[in-house]
Each structure stands twice: as structure tokens, then as C-alpha cells.
């Protein structure tokens, strides 16, 4: 797979490691009543679709940026690559 890095251009996927579902950006609030259940679901349960999947990749052997990649798990086609920082900021986070 070739990952079209927003800053560096096309890079070999071998330079990256995959963390998994991009939902891992949205950490639950630890102060809520059901925080234990929420953290269980956050840490251990995964959407695991056959088709379009948004996931976090780390450019470990490159600029060490985190990316959110929209990829098809049936064909390995990559539709969109964003900086995870931009995705988090768009969702209202400060960084």
C-alpha cells in the first residue's frame, strides 16, 4: 500500500504502523458515572467493518505524525489521508 501523506506525499506503508479504529481519538470522560463501562468499550470493543474503515496510523519511520486514514478493508484502497491533529481539532479538541 502507498499512503499519500498530507505533508510528505506518497510513502510506502512499511514506514507506518497501524493502531486501529480512529474512534480511539475520542477518549471517554473519566468523571462520568459509568466511566468503567465506557472505558471498557473504548479500550476493548471495536467496530470491525468489511468496507470503509477510518483508522489511526503512525509514521514511525518518517516524521512521526499520526494520521487518520480512510481505507477499504476489502480492497485495501485508500480514499483519504488526514493529519490526526486536524481531525481532533475539527472535533473540538484543543490539540
Amino acid at each position: 500500500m502507498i499512503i499519500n501523506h498530507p505533508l510528505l506525499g506518497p510513502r510506502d506503508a512499511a514506514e507506518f504502523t497501524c493502531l486501529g479504529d480512529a474512534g480511539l481519538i475520542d477518549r471517554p470522560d473519566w468523571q462520568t458515572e459509568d466511566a468503567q463501562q465506557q472505558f471498557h468499550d473504548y479500550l476493548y470493543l471495536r467496530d470491525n467493518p468489511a468496507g470503509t474503515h477510518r483508522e489511526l496510523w503512525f509514521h514511525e519511520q518518517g516524521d512521526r505524525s499520526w494520521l487518520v486514514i480512510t481505507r477499504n478493508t476489502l480492497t485495501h484502497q485508500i480514499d483519504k489521508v488526514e493529519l490526526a491533529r486536524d481531525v481532533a481539532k475539527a472535533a473540538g479538541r484543543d490539540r
Partner: protein
Amino acid sequence: MQYSALKILWEGLTGNTGWKPVWREPEPKSEYDVIVIGGGGHGLATAYYLAKEFGVSNVAVLEKGWIGSGNVGRNTTIIRSNYMLPGNEPFYELSLKLWEGLEQDFNYNAMVSQRGILNLFHSDPQRDAFARRGNAMRLAGADAVLLDQDELRKMCPFLDFDNARFPIKGGLAQPRGGTVRHDAVAWGYARGADQRGVDIIQNCEVNGFQIENGVCKGVETTRGPIRAKKVAVCVAGSSSRVMAHAGMRLPIESHVLQAFVSEGLKPVLPGVITFGAGHFYVSQSDKGGLVFGGDIDGYNTYAQRGNLPVVEDVCEGGMAIMPMIGRARLLRMWGGVMDMSMDGSPFIDRTSIDGLYFNGGWCYGGFKATPASGFCYAHLLARDEPASVATEYRLDRFLRGAMIDEKGVGAQPNLH
């Protein structure tokens, strides 16, 4: 029909006209006691043991394609029970014992060959870790032998003992480990189940569950609805897709593991050999091909193929322990999709929906577990309580903090 040497001789003399199809192709009935979803090794074994050991024969096995078309046909055929943790080791040892008696049990030649498995170690700390694992295995009734370098040199003179980066210091052997003809496992279980009245229904994809007031009453399929008292999901690789029909999210990601086979060679390997400093394992098939593999690709996928960086990594692992492999030409490579669970261990459990049961999360260790998985799943389905060796394979173990994490890497499926 009972298979025997005499039967082969008789059929040979009479023109081979007496052989019959190995299983029937029945139309689905409108209702069963148990529906097993997934006609792979585990699903067929579940149906077989339900009928044979637990007296439940009003059973259907529903398979999307043809039986054995999933991971039981795509693995590297290795059997072993060299685990360490108490939640795992007795289960895998039961599995190995069932493998040992399997061919007599289901009267089918599965070519079970206990040629041994050897895990190499490359440093003193690794030797200590392997000695500990060997002790844990022996406590659970398995066999384990710690070999030093001199013993290994006699057994496997071709290994690169003096490798500058990862010298081979010895190995942990399990002589009862080995390989099995993987397709024959599916066929043998299918035949045994069919003979006892189980309906094996191929080309029948489940695309929904009939859930009424929190109780599962049956399934929707491409061949119409079928009612059942109990529905047993057994579709490792596609678990998340099937359980999504019941609205459940699982502690599982789907990943691809690639495997490779070389051209046929004269016998060169005594058994299964694994690299201790990277991820590489190899055995030699009865046809002579070197069958080998390594790490999963590491990203979610349902495509039954991987990418080239992992091919390179696997071949580097092979060259590091046995440089002679570089002279063999690669014949074929393929990929299988597997359930990677959050702690690297499987599930055999009830679900939050009454009447719906789940078996999955086998990571890349499902093949060796086939007999015990089928036996323990059948036990759970027939008696509604887990078998004594499978009490830890619960879906709620993460909430309870009772993970079974052999590698100790946490909730990161692509590292298990």
C-alpha cells in the same frame, strides 16, 4: 460406510464402484435443536461432538460457501500445546490429546503426524523464559524438552548456529506436536457428523437473526428462515460481521496472515521449527514443500491477501535461522483472515442474548484448537455450562480484568 484397508482392497478388486458420497446434501428443515453457523473446522467439530458425545443430533451446520473453504483450508497445519497460562494450557493439551485419537475416533485418515515442534532460543534470558514455559506445560500434563546447542546440532545441522546477530543457543521441543492434513480434518468431521444425522447445508449464508424479546429463536438465511432452540456462531475471521447482525460489538479486529509454500524438496526438516528472535515458522509437508509463515500484516482487512513488506520480513526470518531456504523457490503464497482478539486468546461463551452462543477470536492459533474447540463448544451448547478446560474464554473477561495475554502486550491486536 466404514473405511478400512480391507475396504480399499475390495474396492480395488471390484472397480471402485462401491464408494458413496461422504456426506448428504439435504434441504434445510424448518427447525432444529441447534444451528451451527460456519462449516469450517470448528463448526463441523462442534456438530460432530454434539451428536457423538452429547446426544444432540437434530443439528444443522450452515455454511456460506462450501465446507472447509475458510481458514481450515488456509492455515499452516501445525498442532501443538506449548502455551503457558493456566487459562490456555489445559485447553490446548486436551486438543492435542484429541488429535492423537482423532483418526480412530472419526474413522478418517487426517494424516496426523507427530513429528515434533521446536522453538529456538537465542539468549540466556530467553532460555530462562522457555524453561519456565516448558515447566508450565509439564504441570498441565503436556510434554516439553529443553535442548542445548549440542543436541540441536545433531537434530538440525542446517541451522545457522553461529549467526552474528541471533546465535542459536538451544530450543524448547514438544515431541508430541506436529502437523495434520488440514482439509481432511474438515472432511472427517463433516462425514462423522453427517453419519450421526447432522444436516450440513452449504451455500447458505446467514444474513440475520430472529431475536424476539431478547431471545434468539432462529436465523434468516439466503435459503429462507430457519428456527432453532440454540444458535451457535462459529465463523472466526468474520465474527464481527455476523455478530453485527445481532447488534453486538466484539473485542476483535480482523487481520490477514500470509503463508507460503516452496517447491517440493527431499526431506530436509525433522519437524516444525520456529525462530525465537523474529516471527518465522516452518515445516515440511508430506509432498516435500516447505510450508512457512510469520507475522500478520498488522492492519484491519477482510481481503484474503497481504502486502509485500511482510513477505520480505518472513523471508528475512527464514534466512536468519536456515540460510539453505534461500535456495528453494517459492511456489505459492496466500492469506487467511483471522479474528485477532484484544488479549490474543479466544472466546467460547454465551452472549447477552439468550439462545445465541459465540465461538471466535482464535487469532492465528485456531487450527490446532479445532478438536477441543468443537468439544468445549458442544459441551456449552448441550449443558449450558462451559467445559472445565474452557472456563476462562468468556466475553466479559476484559471488564473483570481477567485477560489471558500470553505475550503481555495489552489490547493491541496486531501485536499478539
